[in-house]
């Protein structure tokens, strides 16, 4: 629940000061975050303000405050009563109730039909008495967006970050496409190429050739996207949009013994090298396999 740029016909105290119609008064929605295996935990939650007027309305029971947690994807929305100035100790949100983005916001509202008038209002509103309906919003913080990350790998046997799929509408001999979906790096082949891929993939020695030909390139595209995203986001933010990033992060950190971050993909040549390393240097293996096949047939061209 967020009010964003909604306009009100009466003064409202907003945490974003340019939207606030109180003069020189602040509103701050604060809490500390913690979590365990099962819960996100908000601690010391409070809606703090230096507005004497709002604090008095609250003390007189004419105003109450709610913290609202909403996750649209999981059809989850719950409100928790909080204090103005005095923090409440804890709110626990079950991780199983959340999918991806959830918003924690806070609002103060009128508990009855009341009238408000204060010298704390902006110049345009001073000296005017406003009638506020019961439940009318008097103070607002659109709060914070968070991401609930669920590592599905715990629920499954390990699975590839790649999906190789046919597109029956693609013309024969058309080029393959790489699509970065939220869960997989998709490699989309025309039907003929897909049928051929399925036949050769059964042979261990040809698997590495396929890796070299296609997967390295697809992974490079994915790493380029991650590099781009690192300009403004950290790895957890990127992983909330592209879940396969978690697998890349784990594989990189196991391989290199250091954190997967912006510096890991500092230039394009490093991306090419990293993609090959993460896939186990398939060129090296496929050349060895091919040479082994050639040697077995005796067709060495040795002179």
């Amino acid at each position, binding site marked *: 629940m967020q009010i964003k740029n909604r306009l009100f016909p009466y003064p409202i105290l907003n945490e974003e000061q340019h939207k606030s119609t109180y003069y020189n008064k602040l509103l701050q929605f604060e809490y500390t975050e913690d979590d365990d295996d099962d819960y996100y935990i908000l601690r010391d939650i409070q809606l703090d303000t230096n507005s004497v007027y709002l604090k008095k309305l609250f003390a007189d029971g004419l105003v109450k405050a709610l913290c609202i947690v909403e996750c649209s994807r999981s059809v989850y*929305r719950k409100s928790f009563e909080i204090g103005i100035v005095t923090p409440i100790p804890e709110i626990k949100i079950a991780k199983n*109730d959340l999918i991806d983005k959830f918003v924690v916001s806070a609002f103060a509202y009128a508990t009855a039909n009341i009238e408000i008038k204060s010298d704390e209002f902006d110049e345009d509103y001073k000296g005017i008495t406003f009638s506020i309906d019961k439940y009318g919003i008097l103070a607002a913080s659109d709060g914070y967006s968070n991401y609930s990350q669920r590592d599905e790998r715990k629920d499954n046997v390990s699975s590839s970050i790649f999906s190789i799929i046919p597109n*029956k509408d693609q013309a024969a001999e058309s080029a393959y496409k790489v699509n970065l979906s939220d869960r997989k790096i998709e490699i989309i082949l025309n039907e003929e190429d897909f049928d051929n891929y399925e036949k050769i993939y059964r042979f261990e020695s040809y698997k590495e050739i396929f890796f070299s030909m296609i997967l390295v390139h697809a992974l490079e595209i994915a790493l380029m996207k991650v590099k781009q995203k690192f300009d403004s986001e950290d790895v957890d933010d990127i992983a909330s949009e592209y879940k396969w990033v978690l697998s890349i992060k784990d594989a990189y950190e196991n391989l290199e013994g250091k954190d997967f971050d912006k510096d890991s993909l500092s230039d394009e040549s490093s991306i090419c090298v990293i993609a090959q390393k993460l896939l186990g240097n398939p060129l090296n293996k496929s050349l060895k396999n091919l040479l082994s096949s050639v040697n077995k047939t005796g067709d060495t061209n040795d002179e």
Partner: protein
Amino acid sequence: MSNIKFVSDTTMSHIKNNLKTFTQRIVDNDDNSWLKDEFKEPIFEEKRYSINDFDLKINPDSKDKDLDFENHIKLYENLKDLPRFVLCDERFWLWLELDKFYLYSKKVMTINGISTIKDHWLFGQGGRRGIFFGILSRCFFRVECTIDENAEDKYWLTRWVVSSPERFRNLSWRAFSSERHLVRGVLKGEKRAVEKVGKETTEAYTEIAKFISFDLGGTTLLDAYSEADIEKIVYDKMLEILADETIR
């Protein structure tokens, strides 16, 4: 009891990139044996959560409303203990549609081309709205959003909504409908008004949903309303709307 499954990500990608073929396969086949020929990769992934084995009774185009209600309750009662992230996952519902309830899913809504599959078998309308469009997921959430645990018959509102889904459809698309006490309050007010006046219109339900979102929700904090307050406001507004001859 058996473990639930999800459709694998690779199969999901395969389906979404080949909707025309996928739709035609469903139209042409009353059983799902074609799946193993169509998809070479593992189609379903088993998860560590389990559910009872249960059936749904075939109900073409949901014509039999009593049977429809019975199926709604069965789905809800057997799935309600699953974690929310499972119940809101497209891959879970597609598994139920392709595996456990294939023929039921095929018959419960006439397939009118790709759009039926995209919007009603998959979450083609998006993450949240897709849940309320899905042929099975919407049944579950119709119950979940309308159950009245304090009533003697806890499904009394559910029955009213299932008998005429337009009573809930537009409401379910609004963000505030994730707050259950608001949904109950709105439905109670609507039902009481409709029973008093003896008539209802689809447009009236649309108008109520808009009224709550934009009029009420414009300056007041919807989440703070008590269920009783919302019921009274909606009852009064519904009477006003139904009395308006211009609303059809």
